């Protein structure tokens, strides 16, 4: 296997809040290969969106990020500002959850595409305009040339998300980070946007990291999956391996909480109990208080990530009890 495009090593994010430090992400490792689609799943507050924003260093000053984020072997967390700027929106692009708030309300869509091209290419004005029209066409926006002069509030929700994807694609990135790109949209539009993303990954040979709380979306779209809980990585592996035979009690419970067989469009039904407070580091396994497989060791010692098969690893003391194919599993 070639060196991965993106390698995240021991990523930690601590937020300073008036009520003390919050450990949003803790000891996270994962990799993304070229052209690969990785899904990061977890409940709200599991740290998946924070992880995504930590990669291009978009978190604000109240966040302290530790660990390494290696982009083609180079640590993005240590990159000088100007090199980082060129990487952002250039090689590593990002799509946000809410297109309405992520697009600047007072600038025309055309300008919001154009400024990426100005920042990352040497095209002249006419070429940039042609490229902008081409991009809107690529993401399926009709009469693109006329749309350039319009403002975000003149677009529908789905069209805004398409426009945001067009902006992200402008500089032909090698990796697209998508933070719940379909959550704010209607169900039918969600599907269109996912299909669009998959088509673009295929056509452009781009890698995609898709953050979502929707297991169905992961099953449909991803090559590999990383399951997060309370800022930590529970399990990672190919979608087939993880969904077919989960090796972490949380993944197991998550899959079992989904109703029916292969009902890919259902949202997660929460597992009994509450996710833990993350305002102090949890000693053992963060999931232990809600876990039906919990053992004494789970409360005191932190489980290490263990390989079960090629590219399938989990951090669970009860992993040996698990791993059997779920009846009627999603994948």
């Amino acid at each position, binding site marked *: 296997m070639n060196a991965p495009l993106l390698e995240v090593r021991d990523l930690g994010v601590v937020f300073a809040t008036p009520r003390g430090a919050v450990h949003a992400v803790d000891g996270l490792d994962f990799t993304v290969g070229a052209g690969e689609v990785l899904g990061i799943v977890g409940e709200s507050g599991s740290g998946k969106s924070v992880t995504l924003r930590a990669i291009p260093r978009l978190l604000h000053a109240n966040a302290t990020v530790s660990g390494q984020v290696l982009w083609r072997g180079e640590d993005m967390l240590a990159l000088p500002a100007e090199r980082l700027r060129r990487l952002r929106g250039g090689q590593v692009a990002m799509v946000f959850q809410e297109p309405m708030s992520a697009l600047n309300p007072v600038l025309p869509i055309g300008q919001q595409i154009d400024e990426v091209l100005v*920042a990352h290419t040497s095209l002249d004005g006419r070429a940039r305009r042609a490229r902008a029209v081409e991009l809107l066409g690529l993401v399926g926006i009709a009469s693109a040339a006329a749309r350039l002069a319009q403002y975000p509030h003149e677009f529908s929700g789905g069209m805004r998300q398409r426009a945001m994807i067009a902006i992200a694609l402008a500089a032909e990135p090698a990796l697209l980070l998508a933070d719940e790109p379909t959550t704010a949209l209607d169900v039918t539009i969600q599907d269109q946007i996912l299909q669009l993303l998959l088509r673009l990954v295929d056509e452009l040979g781009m890698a995609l990291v898709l953050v979502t709380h929707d297991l169905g979306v992961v099953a449909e779209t991803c090559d590999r999956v990383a399951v997060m809980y309370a800022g930590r990585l529970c399990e990672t592996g190919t979608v087939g391996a993880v969904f077919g035979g989960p090796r972490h009690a949380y993944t197991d419970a998550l899959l079992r909480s989904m109703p029916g067989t292969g009902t890919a469009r259902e949202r997660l039904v929460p597992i009994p109990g509450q996710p833990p407070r993350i305002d102090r580091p949890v000693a053992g396994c963060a999931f232990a208080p809600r876990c039906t497989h919990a053992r004494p060791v789970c409360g005191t010692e932190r489980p290490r990530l263990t390989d079960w098969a090629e590219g399938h690893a989990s951090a669970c003391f009860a992993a040996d009890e698990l791993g059997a194919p779920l009846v009627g599993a999603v994948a």
Partner: protein
Amino acid sequence: MNRSTWLLLRLLQVIPTFLLIGVAVFVLARLLPGDIVSSMLGERASDAAINRMTHQLGLDRSIGAQMLSFLESVARGRLGDSLAFHVPVLKLIGDRLPVTLLLSGMATLIAVAVAVPMAFVAALTANRWPDLLIRSVFQVGLSSPVFYVGLVLLTVFAGWLRWFPVGGYGDTAGEHLYHLFLPALTLALSFAAVVMRSLRASILQVLTAEYVDFARAKGLRGRVVLFRHVLRNALIATVTLVGLQIGSLLGGAVITESVFAVPGVGRLMVDSIFARDYPVIQALTLVLAVLVSLALLVSDVVQMWLDPRVGR
């Protein structure tokens, strides 16, 4: 509704506003306690003189008729004669208004030129020492009465250092600017404080907006993010505020002109009070209110220009 309709409706709005201003000024003059005629003529006026004045002012007619005739003469631009100067009030005001407008314009320029960069520095260093220093200085500025600031500047820069004249207006355009510099600076201080405070709050709010994070995620240069994405959005709220502050600015001009002996409408107003020149006071109240409503109109139009969402 499209934007030109919105603009047209906004322009038409000034008609009822002007009408209401006229009614308000009339009510103000007629319904307040106190006998205007005897205070105009003095205690020892004869009955005949009082009757003549009463008739001349139309005070012997019904309130409704008086109001209509008042509004009519205002619409025709007849605001009566000054009792002290014996010239038409409008001529008196027309001669002095450019002075006040120049003073207010200079003050606005100075205030914005100081407040905008300061607001940026304060917001970008929020709760660290540059921010605390800037906010403290402007807080003191906000608590300093205009006349006192004027006297201090006058004492130091005109009295002791003699860099600027003690007052007046001069004769040429250059002299006007030179004479009005200290008064404009005086007037600008509290104005700048208000603008700085509001703009700082807007910038802090905009800095947490998703579109600013997205702009950073796009790999734009810091300068571009700051000016294209942050400043423009923060200015929208500030433009409205500046429009609403024009009233206080003109109020401040009244005091500043008195301190620096600037021959504008503010000084005319104060002088007219002591001269009991009621037609002038009434007309000035009217003219200043009309000016403020025009300023509000301008700020709405500027806001429309800055914010494509307005009027759609």
